[in-house]
């Protein structure tokens, strides 16, 4: 498989984040190139989710900055990040439980719906055509994720693995340039993990979407990512291709423990 890796789209520089006295991240720097699949791995509590939340604007790091497509930010908010074309999924599912699958994914189109309120309410003229266009887009995502049978089901009633797919679908509906995935395979069985890997690879392949994903399952990550950052206790201990990272003695120690 050959694909074109572009320039640096997201550049994280010297990020430090602490909660009270607890240092979650210390001086982390790495970059993400366009069209690549970049993984952040590390044992539990290594600061992976904190890192993702800094990029996503949920947390504001005390030090450091993030450059996205040439613009540098020292603090962000989730909404502005979304407007710039970054979508995310959540480790502990954050779906709109009472709403149907299709409505959940439709919310991802919200930023792109332009018609006025009144026109939308009455479904007249351009508003009707616009709604139809977005519905079609959402139906394509539903087909892609193979959840056609559940489109009208309230999301809260779906099993966990399918909810994860809806979460991904909602993020995809935003047509993001960068997709942040927070442990997309957590809590899944082998078959579900394989499905999810396939979806991530297909999205990356077909739409050229840059993917930043967090996992603690090393096996999965090594198979699908182009480059890997390894965190441990909030510090970066490795960065490179899966093969390089696998050879890195610090990484081996962090995962397997040191022999004394």
């Amino acid at each position: 498989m050959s694909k074109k890796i572009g320039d640096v789209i997201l550049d994280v520089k010297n990020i430090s984040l602490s909660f009270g006295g607890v240092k979650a991240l210390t001086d982390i720097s790495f970059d993400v190139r366009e069209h690549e699949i970049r993984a952040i791995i590390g044992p539990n509590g290594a600061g992976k989710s904190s890192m993702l939340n800094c990029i996503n604007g949920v947390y504001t790091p005390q030090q450091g900055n993030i450059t996205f497509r040439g613009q540098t930010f020292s603090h962000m908010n989730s909404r502005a990040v979304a407007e710039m074309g970054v979508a995310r999924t959540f480790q502990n599912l954050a779906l709109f439980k009472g709403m149907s699958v299709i409505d959940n994914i439709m919310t991802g189109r919200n930023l792109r719906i332009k018609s006025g309120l009144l026109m939308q309410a009455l479904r007249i003229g351009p508003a009707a055509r616009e709604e139809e266009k977005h519905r079609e887009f959402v139906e394509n995502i539903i087909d892609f994720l193979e959840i056609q049978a559940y489109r009208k089901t309230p999301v809260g009633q779906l099993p966990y693995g399918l909810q994860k797919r809806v979460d991904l679908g909602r993020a995809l509906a935003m047509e993001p340039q960068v997709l942040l995935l927070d442990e997309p395979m957590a809590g899944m069985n082998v078959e579900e993990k394989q499905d999810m890997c396939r979806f991530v690879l297909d999205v990356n392949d077909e739409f050229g979407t840059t993917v930043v994903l967090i996992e603690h399952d090393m096996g999965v990550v090594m198979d699908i990512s182009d480059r890997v950052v390894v965190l441990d206790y909030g510090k970066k201990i490795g960065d490179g291709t899966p093969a390089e990272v696998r050879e890195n003695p610090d990484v081996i120690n962090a995962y397997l423990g040191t022999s004394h």
Partner: protein
Amino acid sequence: MAFFLETLLGGLMVGMLYSLVALGFVLIFKASGVFNFAQGAMVLFAALAMARLAQWIPEWTGIESKVLANLAAFVLAGALMFVIAWLIERLVLRHLVNQEGATLLMATLGIAYFLDGIGQTIFGSNVYKLDIGMPKEPIFVFESVFPGGILINREDLIAAAIATALVAMLSLFFQKTSTGRALRAVADDHQAAQSIGIPLNRIWVIVWCVAGVVALVAGMIWGSKLGVQFSLATVALRALPVVILGGLTSVPGAIIGGLVIGAGEKLSEVYLGPYVGGGIEIWFAYVLALVFLLFRPQGMFGEKIIDRV
């Protein structure tokens, strides 16, 4: 038969007014997952503003026409509700994003007392008449079917028409527009809503504005019927069983809940009252609500409560 229909219609009309207040609860709950205790205070505040402005505007500007004065008062009172909505978001809600529902509930309790107080400080605490030109004299219908016909209050008929229009508009808004979808999304999960670019702050201002307008309409109709006074705030308590019955998340539920309770109150008072010594009207709604809480806690039309373990 005629008497039964008359009682039923009277009940339905009162129920429509309960529905209007209940609608305010539902709106804010749908959009923020907050049970807004301040809805009653908002009704009182809006009605006070409307009544006093309708009286002050002719004094200030010398406008003679009653219609014009009322219209100006309505617009100004509406604007005032928008300002309040904006202030509530700016000063209270913005600081409570991602907090527990109970925290937000307590905040609305505080807002309720504040609005009760400030409304009476600004507008005075007497009983004010609110004359919006509603026809007071009743009419008789179906005279050919029943001897003497059925007595209907024209005021109630107009109120029902206004309420129906309001509900139709709100249903379209929630079901068909992207903002409506965003509102429902925000109610379910703040964090996720933000991550897909839904502007939480703007959504909250919008929904409190809409709730403010609904409160104004409710306050205006109730006020024109009963006069504007402090007891209006307690109308909200009558709307509580309505939302339990209809479901906290359902606009049609608020309407049907209101109608059921309005009609049930009157019918039970008239037909059961004599056997148990009367006074049923006062507690009927609450007992009905309790029964619903026992057997169908999400109400008639509320979103099904799903809990995965």
